[in-house]
């Protein structure tokens, strides 16, 4: 594998890590009323659908682990949630990949619901305390809304950066 293609293979991981970093910023456009979107999960979902070879389970694991480590939560909570959603999307890839327009957004919404549902169950067992549902639903809603402008950016990265760098394939 050449260096450019190796670099291209790391771009989804880098995008995920940048998303995690951005979601940790101490700036809230809503004054803290709404939790920040799960920006780290967007590249995981996107590349899991269109280029699963660039988004293996290990990369999803790494992004989830970064989310856990940089948000200060229980180690493994978001990792396991990302992996659960990844497994679902991976199994239903044909259905998800065929979606376009609003369907693509709804597909991401479903994946987000699985992530949040898994996090809810894990958080419940971990803390032995029913976590509040409203912030989770708000986070799903915000993430879905943010996916709309992020999707073209991810498409651009895939078509203009990742694609040319891996042109030998």
């Amino acid at each position: 594998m050449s260096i450019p293609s190796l670099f291209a293979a790391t771009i989804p991981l880098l995008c995920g890590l940048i998303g995690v970093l951005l979601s940790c910023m101490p700036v809230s456009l809503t004054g803290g009323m709404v939790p920040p979107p799960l920006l780290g999960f967007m590249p995981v979902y996107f590349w899991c659908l269109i280029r699963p070879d660039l988004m293996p389970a290990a990369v999803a694991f790494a992004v989830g682990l970064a989310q856990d480590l940089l948000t200060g939560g229980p180690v493994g909570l978001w990792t396991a949630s990302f992996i659960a959603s990844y497994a679902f999307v991976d199994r239903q890839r044909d259905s998800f990949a065929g979606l376009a327009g609003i369907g693509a957004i709804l597909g991401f919404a479903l994946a987000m619901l699985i992530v949040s549902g898994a996090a809810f169950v894990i958080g419940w067992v971990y803390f032995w305390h029913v976590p509040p549902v409203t912030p989770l639903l708000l986070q799903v809603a915000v993430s879905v809304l943010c996916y709309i402008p992020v999707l073209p950016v991810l498409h651009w990265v895939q078509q203009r950066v990742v694609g040319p760098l891996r042109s030998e394939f």
Partner: protein
Amino acid sequence: MANGTWRIARSRSSAQLPLVLSAVLALLLLVAGKAHFGPFERARTAITDKAAPALQAVNVPVVAATRWAGGIRHFFDVYSDNQRLREENARLLQWHSAAVTLQSQIRHYQLLLKTVPDPSYSAVTAKVIARSSQPFLETIVLNAGRREGVKPGQAVVDVRGLVGRIYVAGERTSWVIVLNDLNSRVPVLIRPGNVQAILTGTNATEPNLEALPQNAKLKNGEEVVTSGDGGLLPPGLPVGLVSVSGGEIKAALFADPLTAGEVRILNFTSPIEQMPKPSDKDLPAPPVTPPSPQASAVQQPSEAPKPTAQTVHTVASALAASPRPTRTAPHPTRHAVQPGTEPADQARQPDDTAPNPTDDQNDQ
């Protein structure tokens, strides 16, 4: 056909292997995290330390853009804001003067009553470089760590009140568990009834007040402060106000961790940093004829009909005129301790009147 099916099944199972491994590893991480496995915490702090420059770098443009956008929004309010701030500044100057006077009076009374001095503590000012407002946790990351003397358990305050406490300290960064986090438990005192309670975070805006006495009757607006039980947090730090609604007793917090930009980490246990001792040139010139202890003792009480000596005048004028306590104020008050003191205390007097750099620090 059978072979083909077998091949497909084999390839599928081999493709699923990393996924299964990742899932198992994630569950193991959860179990190890629940067991407070030490290396995880160290790895977390090490990664945060390494990520701190990246977090700060990412913050710079976003914070600048936010400030710029905020500047545009406030551009048209500059004149009214300026007027308001001028009035507020004038009002605060009056309060400052009153506070300085009261502070000196309290010190005077403490000396008279020989009260145990309040515990003093140093503080480290740190910037918030990351914030996590997830559904399960409310934490912030500060750019100060063990290198600056930060330790787990220390209180974190902003200008309004208690924000939270440190729960993990790395070399250059530290994590703060804020008061409304699900895992936060802080012993508090509700004034004026001195009712003890535990402030329990629920990830909602207002944490609950739990473990209240059965006969406790609380009203909206009563002040919640730290009780200091356990010895980790200093007592008396402002936390919030009681908010009773629908049978639930909550605390409306003074501090907002979501908007806090700079915070102070209080080192409650370590002694305060000592200032360098002033040289002889820094000290005020001694009076030509210092009043005798008996004379100053008679002159000191404020109810004295004729406070002729300059000591009382010195206190009043110094407090009224100076923007901050000066070194001239404490001397007369310390002389005033003498008449009520025992001989042993009087023998200790020269040490007490010696310049104490800690006083300066406390004044600041």
